[in-house]
């Protein structure tokens, strides 16, 4: 299990430092499942208990439990906490009465941090990924699509994990897409842990009230250095007429798939970021390509799914030079 590096803050509070999606993060709450960061420089993002406004007057956009204005975002998770995100650099949280700190951490690394990345104008996909021959291969899909399970099963086959649940895509000097590995531990449901035979690698529960656990990956995670982005797969369940296989959608559909699988896609339009995702689609199309991976969700089908992926990687040259 990744043990965070604790240290004393100026107010005598214990502070933790992490690296998420290429950013350094300082937090006054322990967040399991992240890479610790040993640096001393001022953090890019600060997470701290602090005042959170009750509401946002005249929001530019709002939903059932959130509201946003330029540079500010208020998110409520009922029974857990309210989160206040400002300038892409600070997250203040205000716990609700019955909240446990582990519950707050679970929502800090997911939705809350993901929205903060949007605030910074970064491109964020709802995806998990592994490294294949030095490139990041990503699997996109909504919650429950099987991203973490597939990435963890690939780690069992020796592919280092790159990211879990969400993924920031940057670009190198030539505009080629890059992925920042951040070593987040995958979160799996008890059922998946049992079927993948990973009981000995099961870590703490993501939340005390859920049978969903952090899992220590069976293969060391990829180092934090950015990786070129390889093929990106949208996950789909084989059902009815939709048969297992890997297909390459046309360029328009590929762009729509990426846009649809933006992390918290609801916000992309509100934040004026649609253009970013169309440019991403072009860049990924020129790099590893966008594909639709259709497979049975049944655990028994996992070996066939991985075999199909490996054949695909050979076919598109991704595995050239690999053992």
């Amino acid at each position, binding site marked *: 299990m990744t043990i965070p590096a604790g240290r004393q803050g100026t107010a005598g509070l214990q502070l933790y430092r992490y690296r998420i999606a290429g950013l350094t993060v300082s937090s006054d709450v322990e967040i399991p499942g992240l890479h610790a960061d040993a640096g001393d420089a001022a953090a890019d993002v600060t997470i701290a208990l602090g005042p959170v406004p009750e509401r946002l007057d005249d929001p530019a956009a709002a939903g059932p439990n959130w509201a946003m204005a330029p540079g500010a975002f208020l998110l409520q998770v009922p029974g857990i906490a309210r989160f206040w995100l400002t300038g892409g650099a600070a997250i203040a949280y205000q716990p609700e009465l019955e909240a446990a700190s582990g519950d707050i951490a679970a929502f800090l690394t997911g939705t809350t941090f993901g929205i903060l990345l949007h605030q910074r104008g970064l491109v964020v996909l709802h995806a998990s990924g592994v490294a294949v021959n030095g490139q990041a291969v990503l699997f996109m899909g909504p919650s429950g699509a099987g991203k973490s399970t597939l990435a963890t099963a690939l780690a069992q086959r020796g592919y280092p994990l790159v990211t879990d649940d969400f993924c920031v895509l940057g670009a190198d000097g030539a505009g080629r897409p890059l992925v920042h590995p951040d070593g987040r531990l995958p979160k799996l449901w008890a059922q*998946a842990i049992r079927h993948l035979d990973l009981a000995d690698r099961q870590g703490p529960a993501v939340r005390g009230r859920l049978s969903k656990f952090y899992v220590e990956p069976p293969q060391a995670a990829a180092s934090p250095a950015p990786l070129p982005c390889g093929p990106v797969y949208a996950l789909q369940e084989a*059902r*009815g007429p939709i048969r297992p296989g890997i297909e390459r959608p046309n360029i328009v559909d590929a762009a729509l798939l990426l846009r649809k699988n933006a992390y918290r896609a609801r916000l992309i339009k509100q934040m004026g970021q649609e253009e970013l995702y169309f440019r991403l689609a072009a860049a990924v199309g020129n790099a590893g390509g966008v594909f639709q991976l259709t497979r049975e969700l049944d655990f028994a089908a996992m070996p066939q799914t991985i075999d199909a992926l490996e054949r695909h990687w050979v076919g598109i040259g991704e595995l050239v030079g690999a053992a």
Partner: protein
Amino acid sequence: MTRLIWLASYPKSGNTWFRLLAANLSAEDEPVDINKIGERGGIASARDEFEFHTLLDSGLLTHDEADSLRPRVYQTMALEDDGEDLRLVKAHDAYLTSASGEPLLGGALGADRAILIVRDPRDVAPSLANHRKIGLDAAIALMADPGACFAASPRAQTPQLRQRLLDWSGHAASWLGQTDLPVHLVRYEDLQAAPLATFTAAMAFAGRQVLAADAERAVAFARFDRLQAQEREQGFIEWRPGGASTLFFRRGQTEAWRSELTAEQVQRIESAHGPMMRRLGYALSREEGVQRAV
């Protein structure tokens, strides 16, 4: 603005059939593809719609926590305009309140009105057994259980949000007894015996005047044998076959229970649900004086 209408029913009571009838209203030359009517955004318990609006990972919420947000999600959905006059949204949830006392489905602000589809529980039981891949007795027990839920497993992420069904009688009573929304009752049996009049009346209640020619075509396109033929040919995206359960569109008959249930099973259903059966016009077998061989 698009009016949101709940298409409420206990499972296996004709909800999908009704949605296919409605979808076929806009079909012209050939029936709508049963795999292209878009269930997942169209059911109240869909996770994707919930997550789209709340920005939360529903898999990190307990069922009760998700329930506490659901009323506001539907109230947000009800304000959307998707360019259509109405949006029929399937719901298997009983009409209940969340822990904070709000109507789970958002009350009068969550939808415009509701169409409640009911079916003879003696015909629901064999269909439910097929759908859940369980025995008939287990299906009958599920229908008698006030704590019955769909998608409530604590060990894995369920494909949908939890749906509290109550028992079969309680489900119907919850929708008929609520006072937040006008409700229009459709009996599966009437939809089968008099499809044109029954369907047209329900759509009129929902606010859509349907032309007779369109309704006739939709009824023909959504005829049970044609749905079943489509399923045999390409499968049905809304369910997974398994074991002895090979078809979603299984029989689609009324009174099939007379050959599918034992007298003792009929008795169990009737003694559990007699009052609601009578209220909905389903005559109890002993009151019909029907003598049946087991």
